[in-house]
């Protein structure tokens, strides 16, 4: 790898280090009980909305009501989006005359966008009308991270409140997430993306005669506005099939790094917010450090692996030498010249460490180790730093697991920031941790045994198995990226992947809220001599260990059969 490739990693970390505490502190105020910046602008608008929708912003909800509200919102979201996808050929704003999606594909797509997965079994440019993009898919690009934020905030409240039966009001948290966090930031970066070349128009596709006298169809669309929230909200559903590899979505090496920055921003900032809400910054820093260590480890493995390239290319006289003139060299199959191999690997690590389905390269064409990093990131539950909301509540659940394991070692009742962790919470934690491996590995096992589902593989051998496992792990963790060689648009994959997404979203969110409710009711006990301090580097390393061992080991056999065996076959 070239020195500049390392410098861009450093630049990314430095710019995050500046922005994360600012945004984290701001969000702590947005979801806090006192005045927040911007109240004068936002409060009157929000009050108007509450009055129309019949929401009493002062009334707080118990965890059950909070969860029912979340489910109601998600259910309506799925139904409305499904309707739009099925009826898009009747709607105005479809200048290219794109037809309706079939029922299986529409189900898969609607669930995919509502659960913040953004798995796409369709190509945006040929199967989604412009109106579907900006009045259907874009809506869920805002709504799904907003709902994720609500659950994370509720869990923070449960951990930090004293003897409280309530966790806040879902509708209020939802509206404030939209108006005060997602919309303003997305707007700023939509303009930046637009200025650097992302298109923003509502033109019908335009046929031009090329220099060599052939025809090329240039597709129009409101891309810039969707692109910024796609990344900021850890959604990842590309306007185009090629996602962030498409020059209209990410026109330059600057926008590539900007998009990586947007993917990571809220995830890390939420950990900072948690520290603020716990009135102990070290608690937030400990959780954030665990996220950072996992993310950095992925980058340090994947970037050199891709820069090192494919030994089979070298045999045929193809030079992957890592020089500036050779566009940084390395494995450029499936990658753009402007991004280069190291930055593409960094994008892959960041998109899968968060719950973003965005890609700026084909993950299928990564080297075995370079491709194993995104796979492992998802298997670890996407907590490095994780999706908007989902990352923080995931990591906090793992933190509860970590204090429990530490408590078992020394024989004390475990506590986490003053809350006793007891049997009811641990039962819910176990549900949370087991649900995803169960559906992901279960469906993948069926899919590799059935001839018709095996036929969807785009690559032979162990790589083909990696494709199928990647699909189910991605859907179950609500990531949405793919080894795109797999032809997922079949009734089997549309249905089973859709089910995985629902489990990965709601079978995790409900226990997280239940834990929040249960912890919220408890007294805060003062730290004693037997309390494990959780704001220390020691706890960070314990947390990383728990994530890697408890969660990661579940998947080790399947990794051995896929990327690891391919690494040795290909003599990498």
């Amino acid at each position, binding site marked *: 790898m070239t020195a500049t490739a390392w410098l861009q990693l450093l630049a990314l970390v430095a710019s995050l280090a500046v922005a994360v505490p600012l945004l984290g502190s701001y969000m702590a105020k947005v979801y806090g009980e006192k005045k927040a910046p911007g109240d004068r602008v936002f409060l009157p608008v929000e009050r108007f909305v509450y009055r129309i929708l019949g929401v009493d912003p002062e009334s707080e909800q118990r965890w059950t009501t909070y969860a029912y509200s979340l489910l109601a919102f998600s259910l309506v979201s799925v139904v409305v989006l499904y309707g739009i996808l099925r009826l898009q050929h009747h709607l105005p704003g479809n200048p290219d005359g794109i037809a309706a999606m079939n029922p299986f594909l529409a189900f898969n797509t609607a669930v995919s966008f509502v659960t913040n997965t953004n798995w796409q079994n369709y190509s945006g440019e040929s199967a989604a009308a412009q109106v579907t993009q900006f009045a259907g898919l874009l809506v869920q690009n805002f709504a799904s991270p907003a709902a994720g934020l609500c659950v994370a905030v509720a869990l923070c409240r449960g951990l930090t409140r004293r003897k409280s039966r309530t966790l806040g009001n879902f509708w209020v948290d939802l509206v404030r997430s939209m108006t005060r966090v997602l919309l303003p930031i997305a707007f700023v970066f939509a303009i930046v993306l637009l*200025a650097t070349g992302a298109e923003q*128009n509502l033109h019908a596709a335009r046929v031009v005669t090329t220099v060599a006298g052939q025809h090329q169809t240039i597709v129009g669309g409101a891309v810039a506005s969707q692109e910024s929230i796609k990344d900021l909200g850890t959604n990842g559903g590309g306007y185009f099939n090629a996602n962030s590899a498409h020059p209209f979505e990410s026109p330059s090496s600057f926008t590539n790094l900007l998009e990586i920055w947007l993917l990571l921003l809220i995830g890390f900032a939420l950990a900072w917010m948690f520290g603020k809400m716990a009135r102990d910054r070290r608690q937030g820093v400990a959780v954030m450090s665990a996220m950072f260590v996992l993310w950095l480890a992925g980058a340090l493995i994947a970037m050199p692996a891709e820069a090192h390239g494919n030994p089979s290319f070298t045999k045929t006289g193809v030079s992957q030498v890592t020089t500036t003139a050779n566009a940084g060299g390395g494995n450029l199959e499936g990658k*753009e010249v402007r991004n280069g191999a190291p930055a593409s690997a960094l994008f892959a690590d960041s998109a899968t460490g968060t719950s973003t389905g965005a890609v700026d390269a084909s993950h299928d064409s990564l080297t075995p180790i370079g491709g194993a990093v995104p796979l492992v990131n998802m298997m670890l539950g996407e907590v490095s730093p994780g999706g908007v909301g989902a990352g923080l509540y995931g990591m906090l659940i793992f933190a509860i697991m970590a204090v429990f394991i530490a408590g078992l070692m020394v024989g004390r009742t475990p506590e986490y920031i003053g809350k006793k962790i007891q049997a009811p919470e641990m039962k819910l934690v176990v549900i949370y941790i087991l649900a995803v491996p169960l559906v992901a590995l279960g469906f993948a096992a069926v899919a590799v045994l059935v001839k018709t589902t095996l036929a969807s593989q785009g690559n032979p051998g162990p790589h083909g198995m990696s494709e199928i496992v990647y699909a189910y792990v991605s859907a179950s963790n609500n990531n949405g990226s793919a080894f795109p060689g797999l032809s997922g648009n079949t009734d089997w994959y549309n249905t089973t992947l859709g089910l995985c997404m629902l489990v990965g979203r709601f079978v995790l969110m409900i226990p997280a809220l239940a834990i929040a409710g249960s912890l919220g009711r408890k007294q805060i006990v003062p730290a004693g001599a037997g309390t494990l301090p959780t704001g220390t580097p020691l706890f960070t390393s314990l947390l990383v260990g728990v994530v890697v061992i408890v969660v990661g080991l579940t998947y080790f056999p399947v990794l051995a059969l896929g990327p690891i065996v391919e690494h040795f076959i290909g003599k*990498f």
Partner: protein
Amino acid sequence: MRRMLLTGLGMVLLFTVLSIVYTFVVLGIGQGVLSHQANGSLVTNAQGQVVGSSLLAQGFSDDKGNPLPRYFQPRPSEGSSGSNPYDPTFSGSLSLGPTNPKLIGFVPGVSIIDGNGQLVKGPDGKVLATNPFATPTDPYCVPVDAKGNPVTQSLSTPSSGVGDPKQYAMNSDGSYQCDPNTVPERALAYRALNGLAAGAPVPVDAVTVAFSGLDPDISIWNAQLQTARVAQARNLPASTVAALVERYTTPRSLGILGEPGVNVLELNLALDRLPKS
């Protein structure tokens, strides 16, 4: 519950309204202030006709698909609905994996595998040490069938070993016809087009596809290797062409982000604008 669903519906409508307003505000700014970018960075030729977008690669081949020597050639593309690559209505690639013979060719011990994913063995029971389909020019040749499709699985194995000629398309000299889309075959074609010696190193971007299928850039080295050919085809001094290559090189953003590249369409348009010598 009914009340909750109604509130949920109201919220979805609120989010929809906000999304539409947001889209149109960005649209207004784009069309008003940044219209070049907002409309897809379209570029025109010397006659003022729109010929494409500076952000999207396009082919510089004749109608038979042969590259035109007087133009710099972009990276290969698999973004196509069929015969026409560089098609923005089908962005994407075939996403071939790093050990797929359709990408790397038949590398003994790596990619010659049967339909069950097992390495193919010769009559002696050992994993093949050489590619039975090798041709004098391409030791990694992947054979094609009569229709031109690469054959990578269910390789015919008569008693003599792999490679029963009846199943494959053959050249007149008795060698196998090779799939032209493997990296080794692309490297051979690249060397032939640019007059490079056999076995000369080839830049990796020249023989691999981008995921978009629309990568507008090539590496600086790739452009430099094409310079002599383009200059000769246009009857220009190589220094003139080299100067243009340098001019249309996009450096790393902020000096450190990503990699530098040469924009092929802008470079070719600049060549066309040069006064005829």
